[in-house]
């Protein structure tokens, strides 16, 4: 198969470039998505931090609010207690404490559908009844009025007072009086001497000045100490309205959240921009690399194309040189042959020419006897009788010079016979030459190998030295379909080689035989054999053992290529010092195979 340098280079390098570009794109993409991930993680983290911060800030604010109000409520309670406890609440609470509650507490709580414990309606009614009893106490009305007047126009929305059992002894919301709060954590804390507060949101709340809506309230359970001791003697519950403060806190929180959101948005924008930039940069990078690769490809392509041009040119030149050498080889063989043939022609030419010139000379001596014979015949024609009279007075001297020419006539005939032989020799030579060159025949034809070999041997004999004997041993072989002129060249070459392998006297044997449906031709010489180191190379083009300028190294390669073109094989066996046999096998052209082909 032909090696197409430019095409293979183009496919391979473009393919590789595409792979490189794809790989590069993939990695750039990976990098971009990693960058994106990092950015979003960062954004997430900052968001989280901001949210956390906002929450903590709000919590701190609420906590502060609670603490401040608790303190305020404690102060208030203290004030309140100083103002109302001794005189008003202490006796009132003592009276409430005297009302038994155990009958109410004895009623079992029930579990609601949501799993929470609930007071059954009977229990609620029991406490209501208790509240009614408390409200029915005589001091209640003045106490309530005093509390209302004290708390009017303050941020205190509600005031409750519990007895030591946790029963609501007073509430600014009258309905709540009698409620049992002994399970309440705030109450318990207060009973232990610790004030506790709670921020709650109420949709509806009964305040001193009526029902209010949507309010944030701080409720504080506050212990009331006996004057001058740590002993808790009661518990206040004060509800303070902190809606305004809480709104402020909420506003601050909202502001912080807005800022955070703004920051986030900003960050998102920056991230997006960065991502855009990064992907733009990586796209640019890929484009530049692709461009550079294309540039590289273009320059390499130019180099490779130039290289291919040069290679082609060199190949062409080699081909031409090879053809010229092959032609030179053929011409050298032809030249040798022509010289040999010329020499062979020279011998018959020499003696024929010599003979003919002798015959011409010889014929001159027959001029006089023929003249005499003619004169005699003329005289005989003029005479009727059997006798003639010749007047030789004038011609005696001439007639005496005529000698017996019998031998001469025989000799002249022999000379001409020899000349004829010479001409036949020349004709044979010319015929063989024509058979050898076959310029006037079909190029490819069925060919009698034996006849062809005989012609080649005849021609070769004129080239090879006389000291070498050529033996032809032909057996009946079928014809071969071939180009006879080419096969003649093959055989002449092999016979010539055989002759050159024989340094002194020797013998070349040419044999034909039929072997496995193929015609086998053996050309054996008694020459020097082929050295072992030369054997592997003898069919190599340009390999020659002859001095430079004498051998082209094309003889045997041409033999091989011609034989192989004819579907045959050529091989050799050689023994150092004993000779070489070249064996050519050619497919026989059997009539059957021809029929099959037809």
């Amino acid at each position: 198969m032909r090696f197409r340098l430019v095409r293979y280079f183009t496919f391979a390098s473009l393919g590789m470039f595409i792979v490189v570009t794809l790989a590069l794109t993939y990695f750039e993409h990976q990098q971009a998505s990693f960058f994106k991930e990092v950015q979003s993680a960062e954004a997430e983290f900052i968001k989280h931090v901001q949210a956390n911060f906002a929450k903590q800030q709000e919590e701190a604010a609420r906590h502060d609010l609670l603490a401040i109000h608790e303190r305020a409520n404690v102060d208030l309670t203290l004030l309140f207690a100083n103002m109302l406890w001794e005189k008003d609440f202490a006796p009132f609470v003592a009276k409430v404490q005297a009302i038994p509650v155990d009958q109410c507490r004895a009623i079992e709580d029930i579990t609601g559908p949501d799993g929470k414990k609930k007071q059954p309606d009977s229990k609620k009614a029991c406490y209501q009844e208790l509240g009614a009893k408390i409200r029915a106490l005589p001091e209640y009305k003045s106490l309530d009025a005093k509390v209302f007047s004290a708390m009017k126009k303050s941020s205190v929305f509600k005031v409750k007072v519990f007895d030591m059992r946790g029963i609501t002894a007073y509430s600014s919301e009258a309905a709540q009086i009698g409620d049992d709060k002994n399970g309440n954590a705030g109450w318990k804390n207060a009973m232990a001497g610790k004030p506790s507060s709670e921020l709650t949101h109420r949709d509806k709340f009964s305040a001193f000045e009526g029902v209010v809506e949507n309010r944030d309230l701080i409720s504080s359970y506050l212990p009331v100490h006996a004057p001058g001791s740590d002993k808790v003697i009661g518990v206040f519950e004060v509800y303070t309205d902190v809606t305004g403060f809480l709104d402020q806190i909420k506003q601050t929180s909202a502001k912080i959240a807005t800022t955070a959101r703004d920051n986030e948005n900003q960050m998102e924008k920056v991230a997006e921009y960065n991502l855009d930039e990064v992907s733009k940069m990586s796209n640019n990078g890929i484009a530049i690399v692709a461009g550079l690769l294309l540039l590289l490809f273009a320059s390499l392509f130019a180099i490779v194309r130039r290289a291919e041009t040069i290679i082609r040119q060199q190949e062409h030149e080699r081909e031409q040189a090879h053809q010229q050498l092959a032609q030179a080889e053929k011409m050298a063989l032809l030249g040798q042959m022509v010289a040999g043939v010329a020499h062979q022609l020279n011998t018959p030419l020499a003696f024929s020419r010599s003979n003919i010139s002798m015959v011409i000379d010889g014929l001159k001596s027959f001029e006089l006897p023929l003249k005499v014979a003619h004169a005699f015949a003329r005289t005989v024609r003029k005479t009727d009788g059997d006798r003639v009279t010749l007047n030789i007075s004038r011609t005696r001297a001439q007639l005496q010079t005529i000698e017996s020419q019998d031998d001469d006539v025989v000799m002249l005939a022999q000379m001409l016979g020899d000349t004829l032989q010479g001409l036949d020799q020349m004709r044979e030579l010319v015929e063989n030459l024509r058979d050898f060159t076959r310029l006037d025949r079909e190029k490819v034809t069925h060919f009698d190998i034996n006849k062809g070999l005989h012609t080649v041997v005849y021609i070769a004999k004129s080239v090879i030295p006389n000291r070498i004997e050529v033996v032809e041993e032909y057996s009946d072989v079928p014809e071969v379909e071939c180009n006879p002129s080419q096969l003649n060249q093959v055989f002449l070459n092999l016979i010539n080689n055989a002759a050159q392998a024989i340094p002194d006297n020797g013998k070349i044997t040419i044999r034909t035989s039929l072997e496995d449906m193929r015609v086998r031709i053996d050309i054996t010489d008694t020459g020097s054999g082929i050295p072992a180191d030369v054997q592997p190379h003898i069919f190599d083009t340009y390999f020659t053992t002859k001095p430079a300028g004498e051998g082209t190294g094309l003889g045997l390669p041409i033999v091989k290529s011609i034989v192989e073109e004819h579907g045959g094989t050529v091989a050799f066996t050689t023994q150092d010092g004993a000779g070489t046999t070249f064996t050519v096998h050619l497919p026989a052209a059997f009539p059957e195979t021809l029929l099959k082909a037809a």
Partner: protein
Amino acid sequence: MRDKKGLVLCVDDEPNILRSLHWMLHKEFDVMTAPDGLSGLEMLRKHDFDVIVSDQRMPGMMGSEFLREACKIAPRAMRILLTGYSDLQAILRSVNEGEVFRFVNKPWSNEELMKTVADAATIAKTQPVPVPVEDIAGGGESVLLIDDDKEMIELVRQALSPDTQFRHASTLSEAVTILSAQPVGVLMSETRVGRMDATPLVKLLKQRHPEIVSMMFTVNSDVDAIIKLINQGQIYRFIPKPVKPGFLKLMLSSAVNKHRELKRSPGAVRRHAVEKTPEGLEEKLEQDIQLEAVRIAPATAGTASATNDSSFMHRIGIGFRRIFGTA
């Protein structure tokens, strides 16, 4: 039978050739034939031949080999070699070893071949073979080398025996001057000296002075030129180049000896008779040498005779005529 002019041996592997030669020669000569070299030598031992005509290309023994042996067996017989296509080496060997009298090209002209054989027979019958005696007394023979190669001059000088004089000329006009001044025994020459063809001089010299033994160096001359040199110049030996000193020494002493032989028996020079050179060769040579002299004169002889060209030419002309002896 009439008296025949001589006994001729023809050797060729081709019977037709032998018959043709026989027919041609048998009226004037006694002719015997041999189909190959070995039987030819056998016949030489049995009969006293005057002339041997041999083909060069024969199976077994080549013509040149056969003539070399024949020269030893029958030195009196004149040797003629028939050549068709021969390689140069064989021709040179036949000259150097077989001392061939003539080469005849195949196909031959009957008339010329007859004349050559007749000449050879006459020479063989009339001229005795100079008895080759080792170291014929003599001395002072001069050897002339015509060559412009300094190395060759040195080589020949060293190869010469001390009892000979050595002259050398680097141009043909110088050679003419030397030749006209004193007799020369052995002439050695390149085929071309400078731009001049030296062969006409050698041929003409042999024609006029057959006692001069000439030898020529060969590099790659063609067969035809060698054959002409032999037939017209009777070159004694061809010395192949590159020259081996030992071989040169051998050749030189052999040539000097030959010259002494020829001097001692003047008749023997006829054994080296040459064919007539073509008409006008002499005149052309004289002209060429004068032209060469004029061309070279300003460089070599520029001192005294630069003003006197015509007298210089005249001198050469006189020298030329003295050598070739034209009336």
